[in-house]
């Protein structure tokens, strides 16, 4: 093993206004090793890595590269020092080819030789086990392939430390394996890799050592070999013992809140579905198999072309014409920042987004009263930081989602539609969301659309599998025979005794 660390962080602290993102962080990164940085949303992972990559400047402490203190003022300087980062949101030009993207921002003369670049790309890609056509347009590549281009881009600039921010969030399982293989190859070649994640299994699968971040501090750092189990890691990460174990006491299903019969439209092919008060129905399936139109139809954003939809005893058109703000549908959209909130507005205004009818007298909004309600919700739903004056974009994903949940449950919905409610959330936030959904059953029926079968099994009473706009299977969550076949159904195999039974 190399005797000196490549990069050392000493007492790093960073504040954004009133929010402390990290504090007194010490970390050593060694060449040839993969370090996972594990933490909840808002634990300070991204800020810490942003400091390493030159995106932010620390308020306290220093960064040493090969034992020499450095102070990066831009990502360009960090790259010059051999530190490169692959962001969650890619920074490629879709209309250009792989080779052209790699050439962007490169130092060198004014001339560019596409063929020479393509040759360099091919050699590099092969060394990593990446199959990439240098002449392919980025727009035509899958997410996994784009990520490989990003990694190549960083490496082609001579980086010795590669930072990846939640690299597996956009990958299929097979692509994840390819990525991990490449990371191991890189480590073997002496590159240091830092890998940000909140997925425990991945950390155990690929990392050599793990640092656990909580509320801006490193609470634990150890070799992965010394870690006993995912549960142990998770406990350290959230600092609470009740993670992941949700008690699902089945409730007696009561009246029907949603009934769909033979519904067509927007890619749906004759969907039948029933949701009763007191139960959670999970809709599972590979993304893009009709989940979007299903949710849109129920929530009134798209009219069904054929078939009948009955919501709380009323026909679709009738219900959505008058749609009460309270006691109707609570909808948690998949795209939090893009649909569920306005980024620049504060928590109070975002709360009013769907509850404004209840805080309005003679056309004037009662913001003071709404503010008190938001403060209460923030306490109930453990939103951190509990500051209603912060803009939506200033909350981390999990805290924003809890805010959205609090708002939607405040409307006392009798039908809850939750579309991928825990996507991108860490263990603790996922747990809080799950608890909230289970609690909602006492007054509402819940339709949970999720890509995670484990989530569906943890929460739902019944599962419905969508494939190409059709319900190909519907069964109880404790039907072990059917549960074992979920993978087949998701791939399109129809149920033996007919769908929707």
């Amino acid at each position, binding site marked *: 093993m190399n005797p000196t660390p490549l990069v050392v962080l000493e007492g790093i602290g960073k504040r954004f206004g009133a929010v402390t993102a990290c504090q007194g962080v010490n970390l050593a990164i060694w060449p040839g090793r993969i370090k996972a940085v594990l933490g909840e949303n808002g634990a300070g992972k991204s800020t810490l890595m942003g400091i390493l990559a030159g995106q932010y400047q620390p308020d306290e402490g220093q960064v040493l590269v090969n034992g020499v203190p450095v102070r990066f003022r831009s990502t360009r300087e960090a790259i010059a020092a051999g530190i490169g980062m692959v962001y969650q949101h890619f920074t490629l030009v879709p209309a250009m080819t792989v080779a052209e993207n790699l050439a962007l921002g490169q130092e060198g003369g004014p001339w560019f030789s596409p063929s020479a670049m393509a040759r360099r790309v091919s050699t590099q890609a092969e060394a990593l086990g990446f199959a990439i056509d240098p002449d392919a347009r980025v727009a035509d590549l899958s997410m996994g392939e784009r990520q490989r281009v990003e990694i190549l881009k960083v490496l082609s600039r001579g980086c010795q430390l590669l930072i990846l921010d939640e690299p597996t969030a956009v990958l299929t399982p097979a692509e994840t394996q390819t990525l991990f293989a490449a990371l191991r190859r890189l480590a073997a070649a002496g590159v240091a890799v830092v890998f940000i994640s909140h997925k425990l299994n991945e950390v155990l699968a690929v990392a050599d050592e793990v640092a656990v971040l909580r509320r801006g501090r490193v609470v634990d750092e150890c070799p992965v070999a010394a870690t006993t189990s995912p549960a142990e890691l998770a406990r350290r990460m959230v600092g609470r013992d009740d993670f992941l174990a949700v008690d699902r006491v089945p409730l007696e299903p009561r009246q029907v809140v949603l009934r769909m019969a033979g519904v067509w439209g927007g890619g749906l092919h004759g969907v039948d579905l029933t949701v009763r008060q007191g139960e959670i129905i999970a809709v599972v399936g590979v993304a893009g198999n009709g989940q979007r139109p299903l949710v849109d139809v129920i929530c009134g954003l798209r009219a069904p072309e054929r078939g009948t939809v009955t919501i709380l005893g009323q026909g679709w058109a009738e219900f959505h014409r008058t749609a009460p703000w309270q006691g109707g549908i609570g909808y948690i959209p998949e795209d939090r920042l*893009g649909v569920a909130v306005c980024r620049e507005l504060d928590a109070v205004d975002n709360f009013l987004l*769907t509850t404004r009818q209840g805080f309005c007298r003679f056309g*004037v909004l009662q913001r003071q009263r709404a503010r008190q309600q938001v403060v209460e919700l923030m306490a109930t739903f453990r939103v951190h930081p509990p500051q209603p004056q912060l803009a939506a974009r200033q909350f981390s994903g999990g805290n924003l989602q809890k805010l959205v949940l609090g708002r939607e449950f405040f409307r006392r919905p009798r039908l809850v539609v939750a579309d991928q409610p825990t996507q991108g959330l860490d263990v603790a936030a996922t747990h809080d969301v799950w608890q909230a959904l289970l609690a909602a059953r006492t007054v509402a029926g819940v339709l949970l659309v999720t890509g995670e079968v484990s989530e569906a099994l943890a929460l739902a009473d019944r599962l419905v599998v969508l494939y190409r706009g059709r319900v190909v299977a519907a069964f109880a969550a404790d039907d072990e025979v059917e549960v074992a076949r979920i993978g087949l159904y998701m791939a399109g195999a129809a149920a033996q005794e007919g769908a929707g039974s």
Partner: protein
Amino acid sequence: MALVVRKRREPLPWWGSCLIFLAAVALALGGGGAMLALQGKPALAGLSVLIGSAVGSLWAVEDCVLKAIPLFLCAVGVGLSFRMAVWNIGAEGQFALGAVGATWVALSLDHLPAAVLLPFMGLAAAVAGGLWAGVAAFLRALLGANETIVTLMLNYVGILVLEFLVFGPWKDPASFGFPMTAEFVPAAILPALPGTRIHWGLVLCGVVGVAVTLAMRSSRLGFEITVCGQNPAAARYARMPYGALMAVVLVAGGALAGLAGFVEVSAALGRLQPSIMTGYGYTAIVVAWLSGLRPLGVAGVALVLAALRVGLESLQLDFQVPAAFGGMMEGTMLLVVLAGSFFSRYQILRRPA
């Protein structure tokens, strides 16, 4: 030593924006001086005439305020729709229709006392301007027609409507063939505030400014307009009536531009004639864009651009510069101020070598 450009983390305080605006105005004036020099005119003397005649006397300042009043009304109107990211650039046509509406009442109900006649004229102007903008909202809702194009094109139609009336049915038989209506009766003339040449339109501006500020800040309607402007997807999700709100901002903006037309035709001219169209509706777009859409900012920018108009009139007389010089100055100012707004979003830092 090298310089780096960086996005500002904290937004610039309001006085910072003011400073940038004033610096940009100074730069634009310098550019104007250079243009004067190119024409072989004395640049410094020209600029001092420009500034002196705009702010050098009480009379001049009153002139600036008078010109700022219609600018303010039009700019608050277009600013309403800008907040919703709806691009109403038709204030000029809405202004023309407002003048026509007010004139119609002034000519046909001239027996009424001022206390009744003036509110009626204002109402007619607001309705006419609002309906004119409503055409764009209607076409957008019905056919998905782009409101930017429609409001722009309706400007030309609106001005032609005005010209048709003053060249035809409304032409004063005693005007020796000039295209103008008969002079309004005294009851149809907006009176001046006591002790000044400034008319009651100023009070109207105050009322409009306060009303719009309150509506945007505290009302549910204003909240919904803000949300629609910030994130149309969230507005749809929250079941806000996007189309209806768009109609509201367009019609309200048209009504305000119409009121400006009423103020001008009544107080400034006392009759309807084509010379009423001096481009207030176009300048108002510049004002709204430069003001950050806050009514107080609109007032400040409207005063500056009005002062420029006043100063340029004297400059034209004293130095025989062509009338187009005014347009060049206004355009320079817009460009420089917009370029200057770069500094309100970015900062330039020194980086030690």
